[in-house]
């Protein structure tokens, strides 16, 4: 319920706040997520492709998975020396925006022959 009402609120806000470009709520989340991803870039890359050997790629990850795991790091249900620190200060909006951004990056898969 809370999730749904927040999305509804965001949609309404988006409709009123950005009439000139008619940016959708999802697009707004993505744009905000891209800004917030500056704090993720050194490990996961702004392009969502890991820059460190111990970090996973995030590009194209399913949005619900990213939301669930960031919430788990924040609550302490999932632990990792780096991510537990990084997720601690994230708001619900931060998590939504970051998940929207990284899940929206298109990736191309080339199979091993």
């Amino acid at each position: 319920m809370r999730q749904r009402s927040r999305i509804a609120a965001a949609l309404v806000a988006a409709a009123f706040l950005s009439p000139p470009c008619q940016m959708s709520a999802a697009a707004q989340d993505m744009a905000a997520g891209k800004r917030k991803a500056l704090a993720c870039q050194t490990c996961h890359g702004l392009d969502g492709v890991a820059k460190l050997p111990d970090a996973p790629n995030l590009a194209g990850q399913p949005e619900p998975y990213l939301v669930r795991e960031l919430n788990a790091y924040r609550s302490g249900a999932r632990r990792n020396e780096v991510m537990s620190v990084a997720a601690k200060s994230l708001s619900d909006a931060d998590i939504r925006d970051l998940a929207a951004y990284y899940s929206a990056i298109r990736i191309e898969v080339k199979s091993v022959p």
Partner: protein
Amino acid sequence: MTAKWKGIALAVALAFAAGAHAQAPQQNIEKLKQMKVSGTDLNIPVVPQTGKNADAIRENLKKVKLPPGFKIELYAIVPDARHMAVAPSTNMLFVGTRKTTVWAVTDRNGDMVADEVKPFAPSLKFQVPNGVCWTKDGFLIVVEHNRVLNFPAAEFFYEGPDVAVIEVVPQGKLIPEEEESYNHGARTCRVGPDGMLYITLGQPYNVQPAGKVALFEKLGIGGMIRMNPFDGSKREVYAVGIRNSVGMDINPKDKTVWFTDNQTDGMGDDTPPGELNRITKVGEHFGYPFIHGRNVKVAGTAAAPDLKDMKPPANWTPPQIEFPAHQAQLGMTFYNGKMFPAKYQGGIFVAAHGSWNRTTPTGALINFVSLKADGTADKSEVFAEGWLDSDTGTYRGRPVDVAVMKDGSLLVSDDFAGAIYRISYQP
């Protein structure tokens, strides 16, 4: 006897000594320890040095600011380039990574740009071979996450996939296997004038829990250890009370060992400071995990509530220099070259990798630290910067290590761009 022949002679001697007790060799390392061939393809693939990527990196370097008279150029494309060891006799260097490769980087025509970059010892499988350094006789030391190898005359043997190797510390014996972690697992090393091998060991936590403090101090995790660089004997803890040092060097003048230390996360955007430290006696304690910098309390804060009321020993040693928060100082080198102006000679260059989750990214630069006549640090200034786009907060590169070449120019490695740069000076 040249370093080369000394190296080869010792390698052969060791190979025969090992042969007497050899088990049926199962792995390549067992074959190489006996100087036998492993069967690895003799054609080692090389990393392309020209094209779009090299052009883009050259373009980015135009944004790097340096003092007057200095210039920076692309020296080599080296994927995941971390710490560097410039060869003592030939025109090449070895470069560690946090992945599975050590790179051999060669300037074949002496034009001060590398011509060939290829994996070193591809017969072997490395795990986080970040630390590379030389013994006095030109043996290459490679310190992995949990193993130490020594390669006699590596700068002459690296052209083929099989190289002579000595196992200094076998797999799983540098730290207890249960303390292995992906976090803070990159080692750095130097061989001192005493002939001993010094290795930095990061502790795997942001702040270690109370239950690990005594164990880590005993083992030198979150510290520095030293040992014989050929057989791992005489191992002892050289310094403790360090969070995660990923850079060290030894002052050739007074033989003191210096190291950088990385900032605790999660305490705020502007605290704690980074550190440059100087060791003057064995067993010295540098304050962590209780205090970071000169006086930022870590124990008992939200980052380490379980360390409440815990303190370092009364004689703990504060840092020589405090660097800006979260810039992540890594590799460092004393400048013992002659190319740069007198002001830089005898001082220290320090690479700052740049922050990872700070609200506004900061760092990705090279500092210069001058010394006082008594051998202690004087002050720090920014020497090179411009890898961080201040408008967008995005990185174009992240400096990891600095190394002085034989002509006195300074190499800078970058594991984000996957490159090595060369800074030279002309008045």
